């Protein structure tokens, strides 16, 4: 807690300094207009929104931010009206497709040409040649391990899930931990995400190329499910209720030695709060794991970025663009914000907490598919995989159920006839 207050104080000072810089006449370019942000609420997005709002206010624009876990429900409705309530939505590669499908965000090419020449090309997200979003951070799930425990059993850092199983067996056999493997396997979104990782790792393909026909009921699907089930043998029996928060808590309690966890969360695992030195000092992260012999990393890459609403005036669009650009500019990075995420800005300095994500990028992990019907499959996966893990039915039956649930949903959405 003390640490947090000091940190807050730090950010307050930093804020003062930056505001002073703008007051000096270095302004961020906004003059009037409106900025209204909708987005998720994790710390990196809070930082971006805070800086964007500050910039907009220094340019006497109306500014507000609604950062909430329900952003996905609100953003489409809030951007549909004319003028749109929200001038920008902060999205990820999974959630941008809903906005593109509903046609509520505008291409940014003209704004980039006019105001954003200095945005590095790698931050621009293009769909069919048009810039649709500007990314500011990357994320992925990677192996997090306890160095001391691996040393104790005399094993190197696992690079494949097969080695994870081997290490887990040893840890259990030597009586160090009862359930050494962790993972966000909560039924629903999290579980579907783990399958997505694993299935891509087996070299599987979700859809027949160029169509919305799902093809997961195959050897790769079975292999992915079998591996997930093998891992759950070494997990806390409650794994189907463990989301990322609960899994992190397990880690901090020192009950887990190996887990696949979001890069954006390792920061919290390595700090001194809520845990004992034995745990946080030995928490390390490495690159993605593989499964089987496909050689493909079993994880997905994610970005978070901002968009601009379609149904707003040009003035508001320009103000939003400039403010958001300032919100993700290199200037926002300081000692406190640097570790919040793997930022895509050029002056980002890596620290041990981000090694996992960077290793995933280097290993050529697949980006989470930016396909309009991927979300439907994700929901179907999340609803059905638990049946298999609980031993209620065969892998083939589960995969068939998923395909059937997806097909019904895709027909309703008009992706399939």
């Amino acid at each position, binding site marked *: 807690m003390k640490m*947090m207050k000091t940190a807050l104080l730090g950010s307050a000072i930093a804020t003062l300094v930056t505001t002073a810089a703008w007051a000096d006449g270095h302004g961020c370019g906004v003059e009037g207009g409106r900025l209204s942000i909708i987005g998720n*609420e994790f710390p990196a997005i809070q930082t971006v929104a805070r800086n964007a709002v500050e910039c907009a206010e220094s340019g006497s624009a109306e500014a507000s931010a609604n950062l909430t876990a329900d952003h996905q429900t*609100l953003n489409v409705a809030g951007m549909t009206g004319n003028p749109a*309530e929200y001038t920008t939505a902060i999205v990820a590669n999974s959630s941008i497709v809903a906005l593109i499908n509903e046609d509520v965000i505008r291409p940014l090419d003209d704004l980039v040409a006019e105001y954003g020449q200095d945005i590095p090309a790698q931050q621009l997200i293009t769909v069919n040649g048009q810039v649709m979003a500007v990314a500011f951070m990357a994320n992925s799930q990677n192996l997090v391990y306890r160095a001391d425990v691996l040393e104790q059993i005399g094993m190197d850092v696992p690079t494949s899930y097969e080695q994870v199983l081997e290490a887990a067996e040893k840890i259990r056999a030597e009586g160090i931990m009862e359930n050494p493997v962790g993972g966000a396997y909560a039924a629903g979104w999290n579980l579907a995400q783990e399958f997505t990782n694993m299935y891509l790792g087996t070299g599987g393909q979700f859809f027949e190329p160029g169509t919305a026909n799902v093809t997961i009921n195959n050897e790769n699907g079975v292999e992915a499910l079998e591996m997930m089930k093998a891992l759950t043998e070494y997990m806390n029996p409650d794994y189907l209720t463990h989301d990322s928060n609960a899994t992190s808590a397990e880690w901090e*309690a020192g009950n887990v030695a190996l887990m696949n966890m979001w890069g954006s969360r390792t920061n919290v695992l390595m700090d001194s709060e*809520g845990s004992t030195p034995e745990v946080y000092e030995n928490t390390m992260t490495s690159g993605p794991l593989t499964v089987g012999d496909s050689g493909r990393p079993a994880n997905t890459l994610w970005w978070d970025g901002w968009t601009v609403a379609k149904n707003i005036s040009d003035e508001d669009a320009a103000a939003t663009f400039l403010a958001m650009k300032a919100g993700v500019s290199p200037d926002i990075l300081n000692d406190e914000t640097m570790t919040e995420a793997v930022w895509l800005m050029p002056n980002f300095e890596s620290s041990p907490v981000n090694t996992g994500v960077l290793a995933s990028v280097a290993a050529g992990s697949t980006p989470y598919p930016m396909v309009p019907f991927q979300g439907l499959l994700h929901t179907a996966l999340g609803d059905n995989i638990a049946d298999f893990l609980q031993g209620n039915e065969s892998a083939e039956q589960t995969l068939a159920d998923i395909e059937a649930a997806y097909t019904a949903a895709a027909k309703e959405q008009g992706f399939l006839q």
Partner: protein
Amino acid sequence: MSTATRRPMTVQLLATSFLVIWLILAAFPFLWTLWGSFKVEGDFFSKADWANSLYGTLTRIETGGSFTGDGYYGAWIQEEFWRAAFNTLIVCVCVVTISLTCGTLAGYALSRSPYRYAFWLLLFALIFRATPPLILVSGYLLPFFEWNLWGHLSTTIIVLVAINQPFTLWMLHAFFKNIPKDLDESAMVDGCTRFQAFRHVIIPVMWPGVITTGLFSFLLAYNDFAVTSMLLSKENQTMVPKLNSFLGTTQTKGNVMFAVAAVVSITAPLFVMIMFFQRQIVSGLTAGAVKG
């Protein structure tokens, strides 16, 4: 009725032990929360050992004392929870007042009408209440955004009143049916209009039912999450969505304890409120004695 009656020891004992068991069941989670709100997250939500929340192992390491007020400080001062508390107060007062005004009028009329349409109205109200709130709220979003109604306290208040109306109607209808018709009908024979009869005869005796219904309207407005989380903007947030933002999908350390501390601290005023209404409900005893 109870104080005047004597009853055998065994029955007395049985009733008392039943009540004691119930009270423990009902209050234990809250008392546990009250105790835990003075600990750090690592203790209260300990994955290592539940007894940590009794002894405060990590609390001592992290703050130096066995108890900490950090949760309360964070919620009320750092996160300005009082704003949300104030918004909740506005929402609750308005919802209760409007709900009861509309509800008592309609509930009374429904209990006194001999015609079939009264039954059909009640029936439809019931069907309305069967609608899952999730789908209702998602249906409101688009028009509210379009007509610029989204985000305001007043919109939320009206929606809460409307959603709660079927319940209020049924409940008050049930209570008014318990009040004998002779009361207001004799007043009308004496020359009162229907409304005057309602005002002078029914209102004085209706309080037990109205207070109880009001209590439910209050709790609905106070605890609602489905509507408030979707329809209110950040600055107009009431307490429950604010609490939820402390929890978050990605929990920031220490913030969960803000939520716990906030829950504990907002229960205290409710204690006072219920003590007050308890007297009102009991005062209905005399009103009820008029009957028959």
